[in-house]
């Protein structure tokens, strides 16, 4: 089922959490709502679920396929919702938690007892917790609780699955395991899914599409590749990973960047892995002279920190192979050069992004 939001605004008192958003989630896709806290991503998810209602506006609609559900309560939308802190029913066993949505159905729609039991057992198998059916939620680990919450949401065969920071409360290792598992599950079930996260790595790894949000508005929508390699705004670039900011100016029509203070300052933004280290500046008149400050070789990449002549810190990530070609140590004077002439994101102040 596809979901379309049209002209949705949501205010709390005088604060606009969502500012006139229009957006479509395609059928069967797994979409990430990515943004910092306070960007409105959770509010947007809750609007889709019906846990919040949008501000009154004749233009605003929330369409499930073609049906407008904007004024329908959560209980009638048939959505599966997974909360950050699980929200399992604490007085019910795992089995009863998963069966809840089926047991509260109207008598006419409610499946017979045997069918409920079969469906719950099937879901228990899916979440690999068959042996835990009679445990109470308090006897489970965080990762297990979240899987039960997911099974509970799936039990009612929802047309859409909504997950609010589903892995936010889990520790790092369980988190990576669980998100891989969620991706596999989605590939099996193909249910339209939206999940909220502030973790760019999680969004890039799991989602088919990413909606980057900032201050109640959408900054960019696209595939992980699109938002990572072709960010639409400086905010998106900054949010999807570390970035170095160089001040300087562009030399006329060429894309050559000069790091000189002028009357027309520009900014060049370059990710740490898109900079190379040169031991001498021969043939590279634009290379930036810097002093090595820190070298961290423990990790998948070598992390280097340099200080330039303006006392700015510059982060560089090198592969171990590149690092052995240009080994540096703290105190050493070297030169830096962005790897490509066309940097992923270059805007001058005149174009509206500078300060």
């Amino acid at each position: 089922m596809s979901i379309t939001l049209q002209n949705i605004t949501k205010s709390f008192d005088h604060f606009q959490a969502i500012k006139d958003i229009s957006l479509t989630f395609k059928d069967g896709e797994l979409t990430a709502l990515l943004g910092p806290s306070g960007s409105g991503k959770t509010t947007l998810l809750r609007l889709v679920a019906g846990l919040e209602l949008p501000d009154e506006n004749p233009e605003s609609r929330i369409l499930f396929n073609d049906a407008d559900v904007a004024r329908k309560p959560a209980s009638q939308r048939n959505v599966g919702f997974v909360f950050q802190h699980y929200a399992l029913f604490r007085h019910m066993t795992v089995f009863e938690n998963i069966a809840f949505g089926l047991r509260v159905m109207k008598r006419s729609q409610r499946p017979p007892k045997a069918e409920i039991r079969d469906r719950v057992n099937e879901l228990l198998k899916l979440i690999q917790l068959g042996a835990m059916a009679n445990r109470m939620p308090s006897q489970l680990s965080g990762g297990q609780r979240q899987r039960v919450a997911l099974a509970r949401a799936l039990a009612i065969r929802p047309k859409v699955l909504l997950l609010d920071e589903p892995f936010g409360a889990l520790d790092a290792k369980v988190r990576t395991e669980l998100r891989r598992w969620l991706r596999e599950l989605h590939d099996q079930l193909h249910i339209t899914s939206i999940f909220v996260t502030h973790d760019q790595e999680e969004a890039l790894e799991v989602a088919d599409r990413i909606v980057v949000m900032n201050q109640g508005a959408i900054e960019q929508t696209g595939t992980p590749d699109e938002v990572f390699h072709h960010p639409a705004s400086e905010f998106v670039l900054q949010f999807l990973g570390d970035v170095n900011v160089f001040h300087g100016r562009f030399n006329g029509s060429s894309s050559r960047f000069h790091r000189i203070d002028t009357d027309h300052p520009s900014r060049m933004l370059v990710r740490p892995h898109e900079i190379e280290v040169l031991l001498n500046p021969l043939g590279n008149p634009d290379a930036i002279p810097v002093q090595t400050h820190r070298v961290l070789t423990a990790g998948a990449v070598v992390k280097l920190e340099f200080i330039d002549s303006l006392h700015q810190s510059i982060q560089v990530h090198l592969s171990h192979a590149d690092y052995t070609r240009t080994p540096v140590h703290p105190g050493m004077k070297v030169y830096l050069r962005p790897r490509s002439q066309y940097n992923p994101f270059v805007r001058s102040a005149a174009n509206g992004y500078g300060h």
Partner: protein
Amino acid sequence: MNRVTLRPGLRSSKAVEIAITAATLLFLGAFLLLPLAIVFGEAFRQGVRVWMESIVNPEALSAIRMTLLVTAISVPLNIVFGIAAAWSLSKFRFRGRNLVITLIDLPFAVSPVISGLIFVLLFGAHGWLGPWLGEHNIRIIFAVPGIVLATLFVTFPYVARELIPLMTEQGTQEEQAALTLGASGWKTFWKVTIPNIKWGLIYGVILCNARAMGEFGAVSVVSGHIRGHTNTLPLQTEILYNEYHFTAAFAVASLLAMLALLTIVLKSVVEWKTKECRS
């Protein structure tokens, strides 16, 4: 207290420990256990038969009926009020919320006699609404409605007070989860909210019940002490005592004391159950 459970900085010498424990036990014995023993001792001084006769005396029976009636009305009403108040105060944030929480505590802060007087001033023959009530032949003061109102007032905080912190701590996430799973508000309330607050609610009801049966001050002001009509057990005890019917007075008092003991037992069971549920 067991020394092992003390924090290292609080470790005391054996002598001090014994002295403090002894003082506590002595105090408990002198002020709680001794009076209790005297109540039962006096009540049964002339044997079980005399005790029994004092209880089945028509005036005493009337007082028992009155106490049960007042409790049977005020406790259920307080359950409803208490849950409604706790629900609205813990699940919603609104302006003036803290003021309302303070107001719920008012009956704790006010002397019960004052609570009773409030109702006399409102509904008494010379009170604000007295003339109107008189015209319509409605009796509140010196009648059952007045006693129920006074009891409701003094017992109001027990259920709400118990539930507000519990429901605030539990938040609204489970209710929201139930709604997204298709449950109606009604089903969510009965299947999620009530089971979650069950033990806190029972605890509050036990305390509320004990106070409703035992209330003296507020009820004394509004009841008018009409024998066989508007006397409750505590009032009946006082009347008998003032008229030097000591054995009868203590017999009636022993009923209240039994209620107190039962309350303590139930309270402990509920506390133990609650702890078990949380662990």
